[in-house]
């Protein structure tokens, strides 16, 4: 077991449900400091939900979430905001503010939380935009960007405050192979050069293998497997092999739970 201080986030016996559906059942996850931790899982298992729980946008039904040893459920709003200033989050759909330009989007956290002079803000923002290859798009409005560009701008915004923890929700979706390579290297480089910790949600097994130090595969509300990417791809477990090799048949159902297909087509399910 790791020493307490090496753990960035500890999730203990987490239960969470939405309506009738229990999304997490006694989930336990430990995320180490200074590493890139990947969270994988079939669509709809609750990866985004897990990130929202870690950042306390949602509150668990039971269980505790410790961030740097502190129970986030007990934080006051002020302390929670203090913690969030040290976190950068990339939303699955970018979530750029649509009424301000790309430049202002990236500058937003700086303008809200610092009193830096305009020249310095400009310098920082352009540096971050340059890192994601979009310095030229600074004056565009978010509505003029493609999905992949918006996500890269959102990435620049997530890292503009130089956070200690970076959280990425599906950063690789919708990127062309070139920007994908750049972003993968950027994630790795920031983690190592700046000593930050990264949490990365992704379906992309290959990319994860190149950037993650440790990964968790979540399925059916529980951790199905964990370990380094190598360990995962060598596991015997059917479920892990199915996911890592992208097979339709196996313990993970491709279909969301539904009545029997033939029965439903024949209209018998209504009875």
């Amino acid at each position, binding site marked *: 077991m790791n020493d307490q201080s090496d753990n960035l986030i500890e999730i203990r016996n987490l239960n969470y449900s939405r309506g009738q559906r229990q999304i997490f059942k006694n989930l336990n996850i430990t995320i180490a400091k200074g590493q890139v931790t990947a969270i994988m899982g079939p669509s709809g298992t609750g990866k985004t939900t897990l990130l*929202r729980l870690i*950042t306390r*946008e949602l509150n668990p039904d039971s269980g505790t979430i410790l961030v740097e040893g502190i129970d986030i459920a007990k934080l006051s709003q002020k302390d929670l*905001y*203090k913690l*969030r*200033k040290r*976190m950068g*989050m990339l*939303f*699955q*759909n970018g*979530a*750029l*503010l*649509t*009424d301000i330009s790309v430049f202002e989007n990236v500058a*937003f*956290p700086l303008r*809200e*939380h610092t009193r830096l002079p305009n020249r310095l803000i400009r310098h920082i923002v352009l540096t971050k935009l340059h890192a994601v290859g979009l310095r030229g798009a600074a004056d565009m409005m978010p509505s003029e960007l493609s999905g992949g560009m918006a996500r890269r701008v959102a990435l620049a*915004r997530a890292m503009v405050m130089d956070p200690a923890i970076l959280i990425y929700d599906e950063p690789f979706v919708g990127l062309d192979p070139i920007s994908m390579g750049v972003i993968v290297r950027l994630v790795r480089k920031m983690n190592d050069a700046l000593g930050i910790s990264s949490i990365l949600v992704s379906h992309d097994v290959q990319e994860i293998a190149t950037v993650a130090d440790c990964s968790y595969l979540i399925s059916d509300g529980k951790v199905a497997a964990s370990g380094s990417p190598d360990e995962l791809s060598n596991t015997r477990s059917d479920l892990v092999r199915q996911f890592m090799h992208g097979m339709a048949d196996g313990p993970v159902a491709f279909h969301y739970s539904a009545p029997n297909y033939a029965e439903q087509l024949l209209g018998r399910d209504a009875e």
Partner: protein
Amino acid sequence: MLRDLWYALDDFLRTLGQLLIFFLRLVANSPSILFRRAGLVVKQVYNAGALSLVIIMVSGFFVGGVLGLQGFSILSKFNAEDSIGTFAAFSLLKELGPVVTALLFAGRAGTALASEIGLMKATDQLSAMEMMATNPLRRVLVPRFLGGVISMPMLAAVFSVIGLFGAHLVGVNLLGVDQGAFWQQIQTTLELKDVYEGIFKSVVFGVVASLLAVWEGYNAVPTAEGVSRATTRSVVNSAIAVLILDFIITARFI
């Protein structure tokens, strides 16, 4: 039956309670935004106020013109056409100015507020702010609420002034009422109390219409359908609230 009625009432009171708490939170956060982030408020005054100006001016002009026509046809029966100025001024300042402005505001600015906030919610923009340690209530809702509250009395004043101009045009220039009598009658009959009543009304309507628009947007179900419903509800509820409050305030002032 009685049970259903009770549940409906219970539901209504609960919502009203939540609305009140929401209102108090907006008000509690207003001073610091007003003084420290005045730029945000100014932008919203522009959005809610300046952009509604054309519709307010056009409506004001024609409502005033109609007052001139109707006033003339009624008052001439009593040989009192000279009072047409008083008739128009009272109607505009005390009733039509605040009420029609509030209804137009709900349709023009209120819907824009509700749908903008609802869409920001649906596209995770409010969550993103929350994650950047910025309270969306302060950053997004309070400036929009204040923008509405500040613009409403100004818009109502513009409406009344343009309306009076319209009434003057119809009464004096078209129907030949004496210009001196038109103004003099207004001067002698209109009291400061009447002006206050109009201002008071438009401030109350400004608070109510902005509050409901911001509230509906913030509580919208974050889908396309949810946002469109919230938008519709914000106009309907604002209109009803304004008309009911207008009755109550008028009764109090008489």
